[in-house]
């Protein structure tokens, strides 16, 4: 674990396992779709061998579908690689915008299973903080997980990374009042030592409609 802190290692291992299982599930789905398309091509070839004319437009659609799945797999594997490398070492310049975008991709399937939409809004400029990227992702995931539970089916949770005088913050929007306070309580109950290791604070905003994670610019503790 990059922090060297035994306190956050168990929660980090659970996080890594949960995300890896979700990613493997997504890849399995991609393989399943490609498998059926390849099977359909075999079926078409089999019928062509027996004299049935081949519908070329159908073949083009199958090829296009397979390429779509390859692009989908590439997005998944790219996110997986970035996620895996987030545990490499502490970073003096972690972009909160990039991190929330990655979290949005990682959380996509969890959100879909609950009927919740998640959108990471790109900041206009990089929001750089010195932090432990993997542990911060873990912390943000737990906050998002609690926010999605509070939001419920049919709602959207937006992730907004912003620069502050102290460093940066991530806002979880679209919570019904007075939801944010209870979401913060739920998150804090699950975060173990992560807030302390990251020097992060987690609290509802003044209107009690947003959960806000605040981070110092650095240096790392």
């Amino acid at each position, binding site marked *: 674990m990059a922090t060297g802190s035994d306190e956050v290692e168990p929660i980090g291992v659970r996080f890594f396992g949960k995300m890896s299982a979700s990613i493997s599930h997504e890849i399995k789905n991609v393989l399943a*779709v490609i498998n*059926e*398309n390849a099977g359909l091509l075999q079926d078409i070839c089999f019928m062509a061998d027996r004299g049935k004319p081949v519908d070329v437009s159908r073949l083009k659609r199958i090829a296009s579908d397979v390429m779509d799945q390859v692009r989908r797999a590439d997005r998944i594997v790219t996110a997986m690689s970035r996620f895996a490398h987030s545990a490499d070492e502490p970073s003096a310049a972690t972009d909160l915008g990039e991190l929330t975008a990655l979290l949005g991709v990682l959380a996509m399937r969890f959100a879909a*299973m609950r*009927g919740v939409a998640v959108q990471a809004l790109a900041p206009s400029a990089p929001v750089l903080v010195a932090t432990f990227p993997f542990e911060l992702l873990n912390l943000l995931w737990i906050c998002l997980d609690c926010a999605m539970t509070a939001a419920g089916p049919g709602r959207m949770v937006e992730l907004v990374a912003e620069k502050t005088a102290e460093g940066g913050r991530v806002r979880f929007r679209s919570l019904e009042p007075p939801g944010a306070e209870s979401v913060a309580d739920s998150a804090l109950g699950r975060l173990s030592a992560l807030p302390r290791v990251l020097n992060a604070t987690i609290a509802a905003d003044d209107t009690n409609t947003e959960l806000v994670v605040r981070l110092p610019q650095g240096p790392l503790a």
Partner: protein
Amino acid sequence: MRVLLVDDELELVTTLAERLELRGIAAEWATSAEEALRRVETNTFDIAVLDVKIPKVDGLELKKRLQEKCPGMKFIFVTGHGSARDFETGASEVGADYYLVKPLNIENLIAKIKEALQR
């Protein structure tokens, strides 16, 4: 034989349905539990092939709801997950032989469908 395929992967169920049709098996599909429940209101199916993990309502819960509407319906579970817990839960519902892991082999799927219908 009429088969209902339920999976939130649209392209998977549509292609699988097409391949089953080519083999003389009438297949329809749904990409959500709600859609599956609507389909059985207007159509009769002998068996449902359900993804264990579908949005909002999981496959196990969907099986219960479908059974209430269609008491004679048989079931096969399909999953992309390989976790031991999922396997135990799914296998306890339909039997280990009828809990299939993606990607599917269509001939194996058809053999399992036929077996399940003879139980």
